[in-house]
Structure formats: structure tokens, C-alpha cells
């Protein structure tokens, strides 16, 4: 089974995208795998609807554990399965908080195993804050790392917001030659393109 990992800076909408995309493809449940210093690693399974309430927040670094779900895409007369994995937000520099650092290390470990990378940006933030801050150094590194993989797609999230178009154009300038898809994770816009993109790589 191929694995898709969702990467991006903190608070660009990785978790909401993962959950809504899972919902869009008809998944009912989602697995949460925690890594705890006391209890080691353990997993829980909850429904997608509960997960949205539990996991999505507008504060950065809310996601500390690895969330994954097995999804299916119609393929000919049958279906193909793949695993989608949400990850902790990446930052430039070193975070002072140890659990967050651990979450990032866990993310990196998963990146290595994943066959596909979906890299999420916040269009609105790019438009508002100038490209220097909307796109961090870590994003360039992810993009370069992604080129080693066959499946590397860029998702321009929050496209429903008024300034997003501007940010999207800047993003296109900044990452020429990549497949950039505008989406809105909140309103489930543009998911068909993402699905087709994933389907091509399966």
C-alpha cells in the first residue's frame, strides 16, 4: 500500500485537509498513533466526525501525534487503497518545547517511508505577509527533498479567502515546475484535482 504524507508549516491546515479529504473519499474512521515517552507508542481509532472536533484547532502546533487513515480511490471496476498521514507542523529553527520536537522527528521518520508528499501552503498568509514569511526555509527544503520522489504535489490552501489568488500567484512564481493545486480544506474545494493527482501516482 502506498503512503501519502501531508507536510507544511504550522497552522496551514494540514489536519483539516487530511480529515476532510478522508471524508471526501468516504472514510469512516481514522487512526491516531501517539508516541509517548512514558507509555511508548499506541494507537486509537475514532470516527472522522469526532476527529474534526478533537484535532482541528486554529492554534499552531496542535497536532502532536501522527494521524493516519486508509482511503480508497475507485480504480477501473474496483478500488485501490492508500494510506494518508497527517503530520506535525514544521518550523525553521529549533522549537524549545520537547514534545513538539519529538512530533517533528516522528514526522521526519514518516516522510522517509512515504512514497508521496503533499505539501500544503497557506495562500492567504503568503499574500498578506510577503513571500519571505509565508514561505519558510523549511518549505524550500521540503520542495527539494520532494523532487527525489515521484509524487510531490503542492497544495495552495485557504483559497476561499479573498486575498488567496494573489498568494497563489506568488507561490507559482516561487515553485515553478511543480504541480500546484488550489484547494480549500474547509469547504472541500479542489479535492477532485488532488484525488486525480494521487490516483496518477498509485
Amino acid at each position: 500500500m502506498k503512503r501519502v504524507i501531508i507536510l507544511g508549516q504550522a497552522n496551514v491546515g494540514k489536519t483539516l485537509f487530511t480529515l476532510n479529504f478522508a471524508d471526501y473519499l468516504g472514510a469512516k474512521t481514522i487512526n491516531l498513533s501517539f508516541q509517548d515517552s512514558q507509555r511508548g507508542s499506541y494507537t486509537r481509532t475514532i470516527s472522522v466526525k469526532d476527529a474534526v472536533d478533537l484535532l482541528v484547532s486554529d492554534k499552531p502546533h496542535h497536532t502532536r501525534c501522527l494521524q493516519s487513515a486508509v482511503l480508497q480511490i475507485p480504480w477501473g471496476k474496483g478500488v485501490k487503497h492508500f494510506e494518508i498521514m497527517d503530520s506535525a507542523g514544521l518550523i525553521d529553527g529549533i522549537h524549545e518545547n520537547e514534545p513538539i520536537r519529538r512530533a517533528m522527528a516522528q514526522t521526519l521518520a514518516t516522510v522517509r517511508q512515504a512514497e508521496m508528499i503533499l505539501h500544503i501552503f497557506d495562500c492567504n498568509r503568503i499574500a498578506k505577509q510577503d513571500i519571505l514569511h509565508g514561505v519558510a526555509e523549511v518549505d524550500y527544503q521540503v520542495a527539494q527533498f520532494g523532487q527525489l520522489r515521484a509524487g510531490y504535489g503542492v497544495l495552495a490552501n485557504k483559497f476561499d479567502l479573498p486575498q488567496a489568488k494573489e498568494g497563489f500567484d506568488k507561490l507559482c512564481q516561487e515553485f515553478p515546475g511543480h504541480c500546484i493545486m488550489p484547494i480549500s480544506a474547509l469547504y472541500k474545494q479542489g479535492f477532485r484535482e488532488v484525488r486525480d493527482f494521487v490516483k496518477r501516482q498509485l
Partner: protein
Amino acid sequence: MAKDLNAFRNERILTLVEQGEITICEAFIMMRKSSSPTTKGDVEISREERIAQIQRELSLLIGLKSVKQLIQEIQAFVEIQQRRISVKLNSEPVVLHMIFKGNPGTGKTTVARIIGKLFREMGVLSKGHIIEVERADLVAEYIGQTAQRTREQLRKAYGGILFIDEAYSLARGGEKDFGKESIDTMVKAMEDQRSDLIIILAGYSKPMEDFLQTNPGLNSRFPIAIDFPDYSAFELFKIAEGMLKQRDYQLNKAARRKLFRIIEDMKKKDQSNFGNAREIRNLIEKSIRKQAVRLVKKQQSSRTDLMEISNEDIGEVLEV
């Protein structure tokens, strides 16, 4: 065995991240190095791939939008002429002598080098090397020697590009100057050796205009004129970042802001003779030295310290 070693290395990267020893960026760089596919060895790379590689090199240059577009046009034109010849259609003779106009440090030489490589791969030039000359290499002291000297440089350049920097100086000395003799020799060679030599005249915009106006024959013999616009402040900033990256340094956030502000100020202050990319290199090299002075006082410095340029390291280039 190699696999084990790789796994071990990756494990180590993760521990370092967890302990806060390295940033995510560094982790990605390390991971990229360890997981990059082994070198292809001596597998022959096809011509198309080599051309694509040169195009990538060109597209990696920052800014220069109009230049890139023009080169694409030239490339397409040459390609189509070659295809037309192969099906025995009438084809235009390909004259590719060029004029590069632009302020110092706007990438004229860099682009000329890339063009040389590109044309060799496309089969326009047999060697694709570039001979850079200036007035002193072409013009001699005594009567009759100039033609010889010029011819010698031309002979060296056959099969490639003769890049004449500050070409307007050839016409500076007035009627009796030997520069004219040099131009005449060159024009003759251009007519004779049409196919396997490209001459590029380069220089600052204003004197080049005057130069071309005083020598009406030149304009028609150099059908391609490329203007190199000055870089914008943001482009210069990107160039600075690229230079730092090449040297294994990186800016922290405050330093980025300060550098950008300084570049903007520099650009505002003197519009006319701002040294563009070369000025930026001086700025960067200065900040690297300042960082060294700052670090040498400290007893210990981590890997990140050695890489990081902070805002106090960045200062304006001193006026001479």
C-alpha cells in the same frame, strides 16, 4: 551493509532533531544526501537531456526574464531552421552575432557562457567555448599590428564565441585610432566564417548605443540585441540568499529583514551606477567576515552558529 549504515544515519538524524541539536532544514538536507540515488556512473546522457540541463541552468538564474525569453526564441528558431533543412525547405541563414547591453553585474558574461554551451549541444557551434577579450587584446601599438592581433583572437575563438567586453572602447579614440582597424578585421571574419563563430559585443547601455550609432554597419551585422535590465531589490535579495547558500551560510530572520532593507536603500540611493550583483557579493563577503570576527571571540561555537549570519553581521558597504 550499506543499507544498515543508512538506517543508522537516519536514526541519528531523528535523535538530533528530538534533542534540539539541529533544525528541520538541516535534517532535510542530511536526509536528502543519504537518500539521493547513487550516481549514474558512465551512462551516456542524451543530447536532449544535456540541452534540458543547460536550460535548467539558465532558468535558475534569478530575474532576467526578457533575456530568458529571447534565448528561448533563438533556440526555437535555430531548431526549426535545422528541421527545415532536413526536409529540404528553404531556410534563412542563421546569423547569431549578438549585442549585450546592460549595467555592470547584470549577468552578461554568465549568460554568454550558457549560450556557448547551449549552441554546442544544438550543433550550431563545433566547440562552444568562450574567449573573453577587451580592447587591449585586440588593438596593438603600431600600425599594421592590430589586424594581426585581432585575427589571432578570432582564430582562437573559431568554433565558439568571441566575447568582447566594453566593446564601445574600440571606437573611442576617434578617426585615427586603431580600434577601427580591429572592427574592420572582425567584420571581414564574420563574413568569411559565418557558420562557426559567434561574436558578442557587450558593454554598458549608454556608450553601446553611441558606439552602434557611429558605426552604422554594425547594427545590421548584429541582428540580436539583448538588454540586461537592472535587478529589482527583491531579485538582488534572492541573489544574496543564493550566494550565501552556495557558501554554506544562512540568514536568520532578523538578518533577512535587515539585508532586504539595506538592499532597498542601496537601490534607492544611487539609481544610475548601482553595481548590482557584484555589489551584493561584496556585501555578503563583508558580512561573512564580520560573522567570523564575532565568533572568534567566543570559546565554543556549534555547527548552527558557524552557519548563521545574524543581523549584527550585516552592515552597509563602506563608502570609499
